[in-house]
């Protein structure tokens, strides 16, 4: 029963990792850009939800309805200006630029909101949970986040496989030049991919603020977990990212069960084992077109 609880808690946190990571995976898959500010964007979304949406008289629980579309728009604009400019120079520049963006965001947040922890106020929902067995508690918030993660990944998968724009995104990811020759404006497609990445990570940031506390520097450690989820699951596979996130979450919970200090260590060990045995990830594709 103890082990069942460990797995359940791992799966719950894994859903959050996947929601956090899917935008990172999309940005890397389509733009070939590793966005080192990905985690910080989530944190900014959290701050916007806590400090700015109350001015609009929107309860913090519902803030994502406003914040997520805004971040999608911001993602498109940031891509078409800052990130595209750095892609045009060379790939290494994108690392420097997103790293710089990360530093700027963290310090601005520290300056404006101090280092105090914040969380998204969801009233007494935070303490409620489902109690199916003696020692198993399933928090409603975590369950909700897992459900949202699965729904977002499912919708994204449908969008990518069934719509014309989704197919163009995959075409650009496969072969940018060939996609241009098929009439795709790759810069616009890059913008759409970045918009999706920013919107999903904003949602993840608000979800994080509902589950626990965040501070200006919370982005970094979550970015690390997102990287691990993407690599474990395999780049370019959304369901792989979900499985990767869940595997990471379960590994961490197992580690924490033996000793709370082992929580992050166990996740890192799983990450390294997958890298060593199956570098393309659990669901990654190694085959290339001859």
């Amino acid at each position: 029963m103890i082990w069942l609880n460990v797995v359940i808690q791992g799966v719950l946190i894994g859903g959050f990792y996947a929601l956090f990571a899917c935008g990172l995976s999309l940005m890397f898959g389509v733009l070939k850009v590793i966005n080192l500010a990905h985690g910080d964007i989530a944190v900014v979304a959290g701050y916007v939800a806590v400090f700015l949406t109350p001015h609009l008289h929107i309860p913090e629980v519902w803030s994502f309805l406003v914040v997520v579309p805004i971040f999608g728009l911001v993602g498109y604009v940031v891509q078409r200006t800052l990130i595209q400019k750095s892609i045009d120079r060379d790939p290494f520049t994108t690392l420097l630029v997103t790293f710089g963006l990360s530093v700027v965001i963290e310090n601005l947040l520290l300056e404006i909101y101090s280092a105090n922890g914040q969380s998204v106020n969801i009233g007494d929902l935070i303490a409620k949970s489902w109690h199916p067995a003696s020692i198993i508690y399933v928090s409603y918030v975590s369950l909700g986040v897992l459900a949202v993660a699965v729904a977002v990944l499912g919708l994204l998968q449908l969008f990518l496989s069934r719509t014309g724009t989704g197919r163009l995104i995959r075409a650009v990811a496969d072969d940018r030049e060939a996609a241009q020759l098929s009439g795709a404006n790759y810069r616009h497609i890059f913008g759409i991919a970045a918009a999706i990445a920013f919107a999903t990570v904003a949602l993840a940031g608000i979800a994080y603020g509902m589950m626990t506390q965040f501070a200006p520097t919370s982005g970094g450690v979550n970015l690390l977990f997102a990287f691990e989820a993407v690599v474990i699951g395999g780049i370019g596979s959304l369901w792989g990212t979900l499985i990767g996130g869940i595997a990471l979450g379960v590994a961490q919970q197992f580690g924490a069960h033996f000793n709370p200090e082992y929580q992050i260590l166990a996740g890192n060990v799983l990450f390294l084992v997958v890298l060593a045995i199956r570098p393309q990830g659990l669901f990654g594709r190694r085959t290339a077109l001859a």
Partner: protein
Amino acid sequence: MSDTLLDVRGISVFHGQLCAVDDVSFSLRRGEILAMIGANGAGKSTLLRTIAGLHHPSSGAVLFDGEDIAKLSPNRRVRLGISLVPEGRRLFSSMTLEENLQVGAYRANKGPFTIQRIYELFDWMPGRRRQSVWQLSGGEQQAVAIGRALVANPKVLLLDELSLGLAPIVIERIYALVPEIVAQGVSILIVEQDVAQGVAVADRVHCLLEGRTSLAGAPGDLTSDQIDHAYFGADVSHAGPDESATQ
């Protein structure tokens, strides 16, 4: 509407320090098939990619329908009616056959070529449309690449090294389609290393040697000696018989 569809005027293209195309001019008339022949590294593919918008000429102009298209991106040129079937086919490897065609059709111009029409042109395709393209043979992949370009309904189709890595029988089948495509009002610019193939199908031949035009004319007006000379640069016509005599 003038008779000339594509007018290339004295373009030079550099890859860094290397001059790949040196002051080349030619024009393509409506409904015409022009074969650009030349050895490896003669600048044929670079020329084609420049017309498609993937390279930018350092001098000269490319006019399409009388309009200078120098500033247009490759995707804008597709909308104007220029489609390139790139060397090496370059299919979208994570997609099925049909999805590859759908990408080509997404921003398509109006015209005779629909995905349905492509399926009629290549009758083996409908049965395998849900297969991943990496499960197809080289010749089949080449057919998908042609289909993907055709569904955009181009006015001019640029074909880069269709025959590369394919069996002769497969090449023959693919070239057999060219008249059907031209019958729909599409002009074709072919780049070929295989001289015989290029000469057989084309209305006119343009030969490149080390980035420069070495010969141009209708296949009927050119002797094979002339073509060999233009293709290789050296005067190989004398070396040929001597060599065979000693064997």
